[in-house]
């Protein structure tokens, strides 16, 4: 009788141990969203640290390659839609197109500037969540001054491909930030003024 219980107890223990191991192992599997972000990030890091592309004379070529990589991963239309929010619907198709192009350029340039100052920071993928066709990927960036920056990518699945539609750095969402700015400018002056400002901003550095 006692023996029987002991066996059961042992079985239960080993089963518990197995379950625990499975639970510990699960977070190690990375899903499609992380793969997508990682692929693009690795590609850009390879371009940035490629000795053949270093130097000011290769700046144009480097920028073009990075832009290509970023364009594939970032969904400019979704970003613009969400940034303009309720002002989006009032726009005509031509206006929408123009705004997407301008805003995409501004974001691209900001991203390029960030990547341009790359100096060996490490990227560690910490977390991933998937909720239907939406997902988030959290990455930790270790800078050389021993600071950790938490970056969260929000992605959406479009035709089997995970595309980024928002980035938050330390909890500050890019899209939310632009939404506030756009809203403030449109309400104070007009949409045309916003486009003009955006155009000036994009032209500033080209």
């Amino acid at each position: 009788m006692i023996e029987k219980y002991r066996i059961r107890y042992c079985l239960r223990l080993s089963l518990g141990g197995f379950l625990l191991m499975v639970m510990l192992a699960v977070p190690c599997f990375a899903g499609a969203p992380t793969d997508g972000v990682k692929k693009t990030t690795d590609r850009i890091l390879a371009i940035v640290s490629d000795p053949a592309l270093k130097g000011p004379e290769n700046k144009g070529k480097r920028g073009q390659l990075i832009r290509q990589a970023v364009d594939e991963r970032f969904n400019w239309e979704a970003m613009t839609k969400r940034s303009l929010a309720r002002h989006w619907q009032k726009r005509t198709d031509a206006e929408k197109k123009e705004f997407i192009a301008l805003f995409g350029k501004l974001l691209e340039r900001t991203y390029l500037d960030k990547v341009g100052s790359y100096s060996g920071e490490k990227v560690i993928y910490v977390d991933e969540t998937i909720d239907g066709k939406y997902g988030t990927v959290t990455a930790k960036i270790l800078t050389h001054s021993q600071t950790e920056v938490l970056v969260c990518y929000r992605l959406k699945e479009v035709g089997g491909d995970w595309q980024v539609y928002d980035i938050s750095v330390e909890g500050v969402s890019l899209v939310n930030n632009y939404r506030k700015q756009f809203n403030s400018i449109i309400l104070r002056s007009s949409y045309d003024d916003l486009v003009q400002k955006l155009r000036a901003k994009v032209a500033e550095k080209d």
Partner: protein
Amino acid sequence: MVNLVEGKQFMGLCNRLWFVLVFGLVFGGIHCQWDTAWASSFEFRQDAASLEIDVVGQELIQTARLDQASAKTGVPEEKAVSKNEKPFEDPEDSEDWPEDRSPEESLFPDPLEPMNRAFFAFNDAAYFWFFKPVGEGYSVVMPEVLRVAIRNFFTNLSMPIRLVSSLLQGKIESVGMILVRFVVNSSAGFLGFEDVAKQALDYPVQDEDLGQVFAFYGIGPGFYLNLPFLGASSLRDTVGWVGGLYLNPLDYFVEDWLPNLSIRAFDMTNKASLRIGEYEALKDASLDPYVAMRDAYFQYRLNQIEK
């Protein structure tokens, strides 16, 4: 005789209790894994916040309507509109964006905007004409390793602010980490110049301050403040910052105002030298840097409070 025996038994019990207490503390301290969900009032607060938003939103709708009806002035009702804003509704593909499900629309009024904008311009000038050149010159003289060490020292020194803030929020896990960090870094880390606890134990700095304590007990940010030299803040966080001054041991070690202020200025310059380029990036990427900064501060604090 009887007393002695009883005394012995009592002592034995005491010893055992003592052992259990120490063991529990050490074990718990090392494996800070217990559930501290009771200490985070997040769920409760979210409900309260959404309720508040609803009430405020309704009021704002009404006032906005009244305003429109009575006099069609050109003054933009920015806040009124932005709060009732349905995050995004597209008739073609009305999508249910995951982060729009919880209403966390900004409740961050800015009644002192003209003053804040003036101070923003002042800070902007102060940064480009003073802090940036000084910080750049300083970083030429000081190698980055030393600057990081100095930053770590000042961070370690201001431990009481974080300790008291975590205690007041009931974050036991954080309290344990802060204490372990302080002991380890002050000894093995040479007075805190080296962040050993982060490297060896992976205990990160616990970003806690009194502003977050106020938020924990349900106090809203009040309104936005942009203060000269101190930058973006809110009424609540400014009060917290002033309270934090009393918790900083620096003020008790160095009581004379001139050395105290010099040390503070040194700390600020040192920190600024490690962050050159961040402000420029924000300014470069935004169409209205003031609004961008205000919203970034609001989002950043919200994120810190939720942690």
